[in-house]
């Protein structure tokens, strides 16, 4: 099991991996430690979500994606 990610430290532009395998780029961070606003880059389970902006729950963030 991976270490929990402290989402309060994540800046806009950071790419994150979610627990369903999707990836997203942070658009804004309200710094409440619970939510991020992010745009989906990939969504294997639901490709229609790619490009959409949604609120991402902290516990769905698995890790920070390395590299571009």
């Amino acid at each position, binding site marked *: 099991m991976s270490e929990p990610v402290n989402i309060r430290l994540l800046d806009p532009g950071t790419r994150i991996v979610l627990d369903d395998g999707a990836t997203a780029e942070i658009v*804004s961070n*309200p710094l409440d430690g619970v939510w991020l606003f992010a745009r989906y880059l990939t969504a294997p389970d639901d490709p229609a979500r790619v490009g959409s902006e949604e*609120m991402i729950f*902290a516990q769905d963030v698995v890790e920070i994606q390395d590299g571009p």
Partner: protein
Amino acid sequence: MTDARSLGYRRGLVDLAAGRISREIFVNEEIYREELERLFARAWLFVGHESQIPKPGDFFVSGMGEESVILCRDRTGKVHVFLNSCRHRGMKVCRYDEGTTPVFTCPYHGWSYGTDGKLVGVPYFREAYHEKLDKSLWGLIEVPQLCLYKGTVWASWDPMAPPFLEYLGDFVGYLDLTLDGWDGSEGGTEILGGIQKWLIPCNWKFPAENFCGDSYHNISHRSVDLVGIGPSGSGRRDMQERQMARRLHVAFYERGHQTGVYLFPKDQPMPPSYQHSPVVAEYFAHCEAERRKKRGEWARVIGSPGEIFPNTALHPRQPRTIAVWHPRGPHQTEVWRWYLVDASAPPEVKDFLRDYYIRYSGPAGMTEQDDMENWNYAHAASRGTIARRYPYSYEQGLGFETERYEWQGLHIPGTVMDITEAKSSEHNLRNLYRRWAEFMEAESWDELATWRFARAAE
């Protein structure tokens, strides 16, 4: 415990004909519970000032009765007041005093709300709720009535309450003495510094009645007057004003609002004040001259402490403040005090007033400390089994009111008690409890908005 309903508020507990009020209304748990429902859930309450939330996303956590509320400005600039309680399990969604945020997020399970109150974030919305939860039904609870008036923000939980300006009636002219610019311009105040908050071990009605116009208690402040904390050289800042003006207590029977005022003689110049600082003295002298030009005869009316029913106190004439007496159980009051200045005043004036306000009002202010001593011990000494059997006296000046008061060509709205010679009255205090009893007994606004019947009859 006394059965308050069976006694009857007007006849048994608040006997205005005899000028006697039972101590039960200050110390009785059952009566207190009923106040929360019948007063604080129905009346208009002061929430804050727009200058506290100038930008979209700004918020200030305030209170209405016992409940925490969020005053905020949404992304479009609209002002809202929400109950500070998550719809899921009730946790406070905002635990800061003030700030700026795009969302209010509950730290318990993570439900998140926009600054317009809409539920925008629900953890596991897809997985656990299967997208079946109708988010539009679960936004933050918003007050059904809100009014922005000259920078101040007022709200009522009762959708049937009359609009705020109707609730005020002609008393609005007295509220304006606090909210208008010192030079008589419309509005233009801002909040100076932070909000002072402190607890007093007494029922909320002790400070409320004191600010209605209890001029009888001035002996309590004798030591402060002797020390001379005022900014005018020695003694009270306003002593010269007081000596040349008519001193009036003004009550609005149908509304429950009341205030003291000083009424200046026609064509009499205002005596100098703030002599400790030439810059400040010149500023106020200039403002007084401007005020007379803009307001004409009404400029002869100078504000004094007053109260908008039930728990908003006005202190218009330096320190210029608004205080709210938040009930915290029958035996405790949380005081919040806002300090106002003209937004356009020079920095030297604002700095001078900040120092003066701090040494006068609030938990560290010398004058307010005197008051707190009285309320604290009066409450404690009224809780006992024996003490409760004996009412307080409110007989002072009973029957000496004037319905249409006029002096040197100026009519004063409201029912007036001229205390220039009498020195004191309990006219305004009786008015507070008259309205209190009406609220406690009335089942609806049909019974409370009596001025509507008079208008209909006409």
